[in-house]
Every structure is written in C-alpha cells, then in structure tokens.
C-alpha cells in the first residue's frame, strides 16, 4: 500500500512540475502587461523602471527559475493590480470557493444517489422517467443560464432569496464559514444549487447505470438463490459494487466543481477564487492567473491521488493486487 502511495505521489509531483512549465511559459510569453499598468502619459524611463521593478526584462528562463524558487517558498509574485502577493490573495478567497464546492457536492450526493437508485430499481415507473428526463436537462443546460434563471425566479420574482454575495460568516477553527448562519445559508443556497445541478444529474445517471448493471449480474441471482432479502441485496451487494465507480467519479468531479465555480461566482458575485480569476484574466493580472492555475493544478493532482487511494480501499481486487506486486 505504501509503495502504491509513494508511486502515485511521485507521479503527481511530475505532473505539477510539467504544468508549472506550461502555465508559466504560456502566460508570460504572450501578451505584454506593462502597458496596462503605466499611465498613458508615462515616458520611456517610467516604463523601463516598471519593467525592471517587475523583473520583466530578464531572459524568460531566468524568469522561470526565479518563479520556481519563489514558488517553492510560497511566493508566486505580486498581483499587478492589487500589489499584494498573489498567493495570499488566492488563499484568502479560497475558503469561500471551497464552501460553495462542498455544499454543491453534498447536494449532489444527497439528492443524486437516492434518485439514481430509485430510477435504477424501478426504471419503468413514471417518476423514474421524469428523473431521467430531468437529468438530461440538468446535464445540457448551461450553468450560467440556470444561474440567471434561478436569480430571476427566486430573487427578482419571488424575492425569497438574495441574489448576490455571501452571507454572514462565523469563525470556525480559524476558517470563516457562512454555513452556520441563517443569513449565510440563504446566500449560499442558490449558488450551490446552481453549481450542483450538473453533478446531481451526473450522480443520478451514474447510480442508475450502476444499479441496472449490478442487478443483472450473476451474484445478485446467486444471492436471491440463497434466499437473501431484497433489502440486503440492494443495500449490501449492489451498493458496495456501485459505490466504487460512483465515488471515483464524484471525487474527480469535485475538481471540476472548483473550476466551474468560476461561472457561478461571477453571476452571484460570490467572493471566491473564481471571480478573482476572471477579473485577473480580463485585466491581464498575470501573477494571479499563474497562481490560480498552479493552485488548481495542485488541487487536481491531490484530488486524483486521494480518489485513487480511496478506490483502492473500496475495491479489494485493486488493493490486493498492488500488495503482491
């Protein structure tokens, strides 16, 4: 097991390294942000000074190594716009995004899996067909449009929920979270719902497909031949088998939740990393873009690693295979 983890860790580090090269060279080779930052009537000397201050006149590979050295120490440069360390800015905004993402994931699991289970066990009932139709819609509708509609319906027309911003926060173990206040919950509900719609649809379809496949397997027939109650067959035999792919996919999708939050945060003006990124892209604030991308890459790599480990825990065939190699 340890060999397995170490091997995956090394793979992960290689990936991060490669991505850092791609990201850095990509962002810094194209585009010229200097002209964004100096006032229009700055003279050549001012521009030169700015270039030197930001280190933009050094050869590109030197810039890269400085970048790496800095990254190792947690310094990814300062934001051009805000003047503060990019990493600090991103980390400051991360809790809000994570809050949104976890809430959405929670919704996906709590709503998606039971619905998918139902649709898989009773595929011919009208309710099941409705659920599947809904899942196709949930899949196809562009997230941002759904967000708009949600705002229109619940905030503008019905006035039940606020349309923008994050609610009151409470400090828990050093983190600010808005999930523990009523005001916070009312603010997080719509954006989380918006973000989770895609995942709920995915969970429904996955669970349903898994159930359909599992029910046709011989081990189910054998369990029935042993006289095992239907409840146990579904609850133990089937669930354990489908949990593997479901957990794996949902785990991997968590990463995309964080990424998609870009859209939701923009619409609902939720103060998370995503909104920060969009603004940075529009304003050519390179350090923030680079820092965000690196954090996201790290995120994904870690998530992939964790999911792999969970998968090997859940599926005894994988776990024991690695033991013997």
């Amino acid at each position: 097991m340890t060999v397995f983890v170490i091997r995956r860790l090394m793979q992960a580090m290689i990936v991060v390294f490669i991505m850092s090269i791609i990201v850095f060279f990509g962002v810094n080779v194209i585009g010229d942000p200097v002209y964004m930052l100096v006032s229009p009537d700055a003279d050549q000397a001012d521009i030169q000074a700015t270039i030197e201050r930001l280190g933009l006149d050094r050869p590109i590979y030197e810039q890269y190594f400085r970048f790496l050295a800095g990254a190792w120490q947690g310094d990814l440069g300062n934001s051009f716009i805000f003047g503060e360390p990019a990493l600090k800015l991103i980390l400051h905004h991360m809790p809000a995004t994570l809050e949104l993402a976890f809430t959405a994931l929670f919704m996906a699991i709590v709503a998606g899996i039971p619905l998918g289970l139902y649709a898989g066990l009773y595929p011919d009932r009208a309710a099941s067909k409705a659920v599947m139709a809904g899942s196709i819609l949930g899949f196809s509708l562009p997230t941002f449009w759904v967000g708009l509609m949600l705002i229109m319906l619940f905030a503008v027309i019905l006035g039940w929920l606020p349309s923008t911003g994050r609610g009151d926060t409470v400090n828990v173990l050093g983190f600010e979270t808005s999930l523990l206040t009523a005001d916070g919950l009312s603010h997080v509900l719509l954006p989380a719902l918006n973000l989770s719609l895609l995942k709920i649809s995915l969970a429904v379809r996955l669970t349903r497909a898994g159930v359909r496949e599992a029910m046709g397997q011989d081990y189910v027939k054998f369990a029935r031949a042993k006289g095992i109650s239907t409840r146990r067959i579904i609850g133990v035999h089937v669930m354990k088998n489908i949990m593997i792919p479901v957990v794996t996919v949902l785990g991997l999708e968590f990463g995309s939740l964080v990424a998609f939050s870009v859209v939701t945060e923009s619409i609902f003006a939720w103060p998370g990393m995503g909104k920060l990124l969009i603004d940075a892209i529009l304003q050519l604030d390179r350090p923030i873009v680079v820092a965000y991308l690196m954090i996201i890459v790290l995120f994904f790599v870690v998530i992939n690693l964790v999911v792999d480990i969970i998968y090997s825990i859940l599926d005894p065939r994988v776990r024991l295979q690695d033991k013997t190699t």
Partner: protein
Amino acid sequence: MIDAAQNALPEAEKQLIDTETPFQRFRSEFLESKVATAALITMVAIIILAIIAPWIVPQNPYDLAQVDVLDSRMAPGSEAFTGYTMWLGSDGAGRDLYSAILYGLRISLSVGITSGVIALLLGMVIGLAAAYAGGRTENLIMRIVDLQLSFPAALVALMLIAILGKGVDKIILALVVAQWAYYARTVRSSALVERHKEYVEAAACLGISHARIIFRHILPNCLAPLIVVGTVQTAHAISLEATLSFLGVGLPPTSPSLGVLIANGFEYMMSGRYWISVYPGLALLLTVVSINLVGDRLRDVLNPRRNTGGQARSAK
C-alpha cells in the same frame, strides 16, 4: 450462385436472414423514441434557421445604419421606429432581438461546430495512431490524454484564453484544445478493441499496408461511438463558448454569439427587462438540449451491448 445456396437452406433458417439493412433498422429504432424525434426535428430546424437567417430577419442587427437607439429596450411585441414589429423586443442598443438571436445562432453554431469538427479530426488521428502504434508511443500519448482529461474542459479553455487573449480564432483554438482529448480517448478505445481482433491480423498477414488497415478496416468500426461523442461534445462546445462569452472572456462584441447577447442583457435583468437575456438564453437552451437528446438516443441505439427485450437469451 448465392441464390442456389439460399434455396438449399431449410425453411426455418431462411426466416433468420434479415430483410432490413442495418441503416434502416437503425433509423426505425432511433425514431421509436418520440422525444428524440422531436429533438432531431428541433435541431434540424434550428440549423436551417441559422443558415437562412439573413433572409428572414427584418433587420440586420450589425448594420449600424439600420439600428436606432430610440428603439432600445422596448418590450416584446412593440413596434420599431421604422415600422416592423419587434416580436422579441429590443436590446440596449436598439437591435431587434429576434434578428440578433438568429444572427447569434449562426455564430454560436459555427464556432461550436467548427471547433467540434477540428477537435474530432485531430482526436481521431491521434487516437488511431496511438491504438495502432501500441507500446511506448501509445502509453505516452495516452498519458497526455489522461492528463488533459483530468482537468475539466472549461478550465482548459480558460487557461488557454488567459494565455492567448481574446479573438474568434483564439476561442476556436481553445475549444479545440479543450475537446480533442475526448475524441482521442473514444477512438483509441474502440480502435484498441478492433486492433486485437483477428481480422486485423489477417489483413496484416495479407500484406495490406498499415494506412489501409487503419482507414478501411479499423476506422469504420469506431464510427459509432465517435458519432455519439461528437454530438454530445458539439453541444458542450456550444455551451462552453456561451459560458466563456458570458463571462467576458469569450467572443468579442464584434461577433456576438448567444452568450454575448445574454451577457449584454444581464444588467437589465434586475430592472425587469428580462427579455434581453431570457430569449437568447432560450434559443441557446433549445439548441443545446435538442442536440444532447439526439446524442443520448444515438448512444442508446448504437450501443452494441444494449439489452433489449428482443435479444433471445439462450434458453437453457
């Protein structure tokens, strides 16, 4: 000669020989689902509308001579200054929304389909090459594919736009890069299955060239899943472009796709002028959902492992 052989078969076995071509069977099965048929009709209608748009709209919304700011922000059904009816209202600059939507459809569809086709070709070539080459080449290529697939397409596109900047060609490039990996993986999976089948070995034994084997033998068997993925991916591409444009990092205002239109109307939503965003949104919705439904149905019909009631289980 074949007739004689058929005549020699006993009665019962003659009944087993199909009288339908596979395509006819596919078509009749596809059309069995009313929903999918409706979706197909919608999809085709939308495409046709987009193509003939310039001829059926009352106003070219991007010809500044025809646009009058006095017409702006009018509710649906109102009459424009120049006399025609704006069935869907007008936007902030006075453009007739109905016209703008149809023009927007053209752009959304062309960007989505173009990037989809390029990504398909690119992914197909790479996937085929990987499957056929095998060994370390294949491993290397697939690692790159997996690496890219572990990031959501939206993020990849965002990253590229952050790097490349804005512009129609850059958007298409970003969409292509975001999508090719799906095609590559799909093609490689089917090609891999085919490659290990005996008919490929047989062809190789006969000395048929590699290229011919790939294109004449393996490729046709990969088409089915490719079509399914292609449909769904195109819908995603259209959706993705709209999302990016909405966020402001997609198409520039000079090529206003549906996403740009929706973005333009966002600011008016709070003040009750919902139509500026909602109608383009509905058009986008209809397009993407209908393509997805068609793709979904295609997947059900083309899936070789599907268990219909018609498959006679070998009764033991």
